[in-house]
């Protein structure tokens, strides 16, 4: 379990790093043009705001806060934004929006205004009691059964934002957006398929439905079995089952206390 947890955290860290090219010298910013800001605002409201919010600070539907985006913040002229919009980020459900130069310039101008207008409140505030969190960690929560503050959780408080830490302590799978459809998100589940003959196949679960199951066995081979009325039998083991069991009844105070404790692990 520890190994799979670490894998999950590592993926999350990678996902949070700014894209290549986002850092470097800041280009000189053109003066703020209110007419362009207004044109950009109208365009943004119509095309972008569903995900990114009317003020570009992130929407409920998982779009990121663009006023915190390195692409936006370090690139007031819109060049990086234009390059980014050529391809989007399909893996995060951000489609490509190739824009003509004039429109791009308007949107960049609007985003610059949005950055300037933003108040920078933290996304999550530590409100819990670290001592109570520690007591839960070592006691009733039985977290120490799998985790160690000198092992897998060493320095965890420095690795994540508070919101990320809190989200992943409840369920260390995913990055807070919508989970991908059908395909597995690490840490992976394991599966055992037992054929009517008694022959068993065990491996990493790749996908499962009521009609089929696909696994990758220890040799790296991909095996798919069709299913009919639960034949062959399929047993799935989730390394995060203890988290799933806990989250269904977890009180907000317990969650806050654990977060308050984990942020102290530096």
């Amino acid at each position, binding site marked *: 379990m520890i190994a799979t947890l670490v894998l999950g955290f590592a993926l999350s860290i990678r996902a949070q790093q700014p894209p290549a090219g986002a850092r470097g010298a800041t280009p000189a910013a053109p003066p703020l043009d209110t007419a362009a800001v207004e044109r950009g605002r109208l365009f943004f409201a*119509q095309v972008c705001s569903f995900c990114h*919010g009317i003020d570009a600070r992130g929407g409920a539907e998982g779009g990121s806060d663009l006023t915190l985006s390195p692409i936006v913040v370090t690139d007031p002229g819109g060049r990086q934004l234009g390059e980014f919009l050529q391809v989007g980020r399909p893996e995060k459900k951000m489609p490509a929006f190739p824009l003509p130069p004039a429109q791009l310039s308007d949107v960049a101008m609007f985003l610059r205004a949005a950055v300037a207008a933003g108040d920078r409140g933290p996304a999550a505030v530590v409100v819990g009691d670290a001592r109570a969190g520690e007591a839960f960690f070592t006691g009733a929560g039985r977290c120490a059964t799998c985790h160690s503050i000198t092992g897998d959780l060493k320095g965890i408080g420095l690795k994540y934002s508070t919101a990320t830490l809190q989200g992943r302590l409840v369920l260390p799978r995913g990055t807070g957006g919508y989970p991908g459809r059908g395909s597995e998100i690490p840490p992976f589940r394991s599966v055992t398929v037992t054929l009517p003959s008694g022959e068993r196949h065990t491996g990493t679960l790749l996908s499962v439905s009521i009609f089929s199951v696909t696994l990758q066995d220890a040799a790296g081979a991909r095996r798919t079995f069709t299913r009919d009325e639960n034949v062959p039998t399929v047993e799935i083991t989730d390394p995060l089952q203890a988290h799933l069991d806990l989250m269904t009844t*977890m009180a907000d105070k317990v969650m*806050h206390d654990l977060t308050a404790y984990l942020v102290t692990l530096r």
Partner: protein
Amino acid sequence: MIRRSLAIVTIVAILTAAGLAQSGTGDSWPTYHGDHSGRHYSSLKQVTVANVKNLSLAWVFRTTGSSQGGRAAPAPAIKAMPLMVNGVLYLSTPNQVFAVDARTGEQIWHYAWPGHGAIGNRGVGMFGNWLYVATPDNNIVSLDARTGKERWSKKMVSVEAVNFSSSAPVVIGNHVIVGIGGDGGGSQSFLESLDPETGASQWKWLTTPGKGEPGIETWPSAEVAARSAGAPWLPPTYDPALNLIYVTTGQPTPTYNGKGREGDNLYTCSVVALNPDTGKMAWYYQFSPHDTHDWDATQVPVLIDGTIDGQPRKLLAQANRNGYYFLLDRTNGKNLLVKQFAASNSYLGIDNGRLIPNPAKEGSPGGTLVFPDSDGAANYPSPSFSPDTGLFYVNATDAASIFYLAKDPTHPTGFGRDSEWHLGLFNSRLMALDYRTGQVRWQQKYPETAGFWSSTHPGVLTTAGGLLFSGDPSGNFIAFDAATGKPLWHARLGGTTISNSPQTFVLDGRQYVVVAAGDSLFGFALQ
């Protein structure tokens, strides 16, 4: 041709008026819900439990030019319920309308409105030879169904005021009824009735009350109410005998932050009964008082002519995004049942048919763990009620999120800085509920590790052939035995989940079952 189409519309109206219990959708599919009851039940029975194993692909129609984008579908997806009238399917995606030969899947014409992509489009409405469609920039466009040529367009409200109109117009008598408003816009939404010939306004119903009007006492002020959304973006259902349309409304805004809008916030997250001739409200019922979790009530209000305690009753049933199943008397809006069907932890209880929200489960700067997440236990795709089985069928999911509010926001609007950490989607399933009690009769649980969410929630169709058509999270299109839940037939439609609700009709004596998955529409019939 005009006369013939009008005659068909009239026949459908008469059949519907004759009694919901006896009818079902017939040979055609002339309006969003198939008929006005919202039951997604068809009286067709050429395809049955016994022969569905011989169901085969007849054609595929792939849409082109869809400019959909944003949260729900970076890839184009048909979310619309196509109409099928006189052998022609009429379907839409944002800014696009297609006419397709329902026998062959061949495109007849394609209409494009110049505009940008958006969340989705639910479909077109039809009156005689005229079609009506809403555009993301809040126009209603009327087309000639024979040619796809534009007759007129009408700007309903500015893009700046309201975003992303997506509802399908519904034609009741000589009223083209359209819901205008998107989501989280911090503005006023409304339902408007238009003249089918000219587009002239007949009446307009605002989803939130004005100064001095009933319901304004559930808001701090008329100013707050006027910018608080409640978008009616799902086509209404209709009872011709009572002459009432049943309109469901969206969430109030700011969506997550309720501190500036104390009170129940009528008529958001509600069903309202309106007279389609005047727009006057007969009654309302609010599913989620003072919602702070984006649990809009734009799930289908299903009209059931049923029996409770031996008495025939005119009922309205809804499986709500908030995780509860509701049963109302649709003559007066009186609540008869509130029954939980999915994981929920944010209500203190039920008081006289009203859910009591738990203030401690609103989002907070420290984060609040809430079941379900904002996508909800169910969503807009159609559930189904079969009068043959007496069961109400809905695809449901358990999900959780940590809801955050920005610390001390000064002027929260829209979704503001408030946000949500999605923990996952668990235990997606097809549920069969006793419509009277909400008790689970059977359910098909899906083992997929990521389940349904709003854009991947398949709709449900039941038929007099004893079948239930729907889909799973892996993208299989499945026929079940509606009585037992046993899967009888399935086909995987290309790596995307079912993206609308299945429908059925008859042409030349052959029953077709049609469903959308992603950018394509699939027609099936018996081999």
